[in-house]
């Protein structure tokens, strides 16, 4: 076997497998599994001997290949269900390979398209240079997106002395949703009972979050809660009356 090709050119174990299939001029739907497994393992061994970083995924596929090979060597088990008899142990792998191959080809065809800033270019002049009379704002603007938002937050948190206190989790954000909802309604209706806040949708999760949101708002001194008698309705008011 000749090793003239560079070993780090594979984009993953499926890519290596596709390469071996092409190299041996094999029909992808009828892979001689013993041959391919042997070559695949040989490549892994070589990569290891060259101290190349061998990602876990390569070993996982090696295990899969060995497993398929052993299955194909076994004679059909007596009494096995009719339908399973026809099942090719390679089927799942073949399907995965075909799928990966399709996307690999799609990636190449994307790359062959006329690309912006490689094959064609848009107006180079900045916006404010387009007309003599108008002085545009020079500040760089960011088009908004969720990724940009969380990245901005991360930048700030990274600069803090105690970033751990800024750790946010899904729970806290869900609570913020409920808090916003309560504040909007309080603004409109000036006072509300706990029952009114929960409304028609009496799911457990919603009740808990409503309760937690009210506690949080009381802690923040944003709402006050009163109860008329031991079993009376709990009424919630804004802590500060807007004039």
């Amino acid at each position, binding site marked *: 076997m000749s090793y003239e090709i560079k070993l780090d050119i594979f984009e*993953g*174990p499926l890519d290596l497998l596709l390469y071996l299939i092409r190299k041996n001029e094999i029909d992808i739907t009828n892979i001689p599994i013993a041959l391919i497994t042997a070559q695949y393992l040989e490549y892994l061994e070589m990569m290891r001997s060259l101290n190349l970083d061998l990602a876990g995924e390569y070993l996982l596929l090696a295990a899969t290949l060995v497993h398929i090979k052993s299955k194909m060597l076994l004679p059909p088990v007596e009494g096995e269900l009719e339908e399973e008899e026809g099942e090719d142990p390679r089927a799942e792998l073949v399907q995965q390979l075909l799928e990966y191959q*399709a996307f690999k080809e799609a990636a190449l065809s994307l790359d062959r398209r006329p690309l912006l800033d490689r*094959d064609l270019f848009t107006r180079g002049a900045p916006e404010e240079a387009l007309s003599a009379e108008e002085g545009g704002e020079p500040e760089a603007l960011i088009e908004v997106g*969720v*990724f940009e938002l969380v990245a901005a937050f991360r930048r700030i948190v990274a600069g803090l002395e105690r970033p751990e206190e800024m750790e946010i989790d899904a729970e806290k954000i869900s609570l913020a949703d409920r808090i916003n909802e309560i504040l909007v309604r309080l603004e409109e209706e000036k006072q509300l009972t706990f029952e009114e806040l929960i409304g028609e949708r009496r799911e457990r999760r919603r009740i808990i979050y409503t309760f937690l949101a009210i506690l949080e708002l009381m802690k923040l001194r944003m709402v006050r809660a009163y109860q008329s008698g031991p079993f009376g309705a709990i009424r919630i008011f804004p802590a500060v009356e807007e004039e």
Partner: protein
Amino acid sequence: MDEKVAIIEALVFASEAPLTADKITEILPGTDRKGTASLLEELIREYEQRGGGIFLAEVAGGFQFRTRTEMAPWIRKLKAARPAMLSPAAMETLAVIAYRQPLVKSEIDRIRGVDVSGALKGLLEKKLVRIVGRKDVPGKPIIYGTTRKFLEVFNLKDLSELPTLRELKDLQTAS
């Protein structure tokens, strides 16, 4: 040149992103969607007939002036910096997202057979991919999709312009 065509030329030229026909219709007085479309047609034809260095491209759901691909060697001489190319790993990840969107990261990992975290982050930073939302399954994983900038960079009118995947059809019949 017809005055309205001239205004459209100025608007498309001044716009930072591809300008939609809807936006043009909104700005131009006394024009409906159909009128704008035929004025745009006229402008596209005019640039074609001139045979100059730029043309009016229909891209990412809008219109934008772009240099002809034959001009690329000269412009590359002007812009000394090499354009930032995508690595094969990034291209494959992008292809999976483009064809299968909206989808979660574990699905991309599965198709490519590797952990795509690094490639995915790079695509998010380049604004070719965006966070679309969360999937309503346990763990609420983040869903990804391509951006308008993806269409702009790959010179696509819309996603339906992506070439179809021949093999995917085979797969569907096989499975």
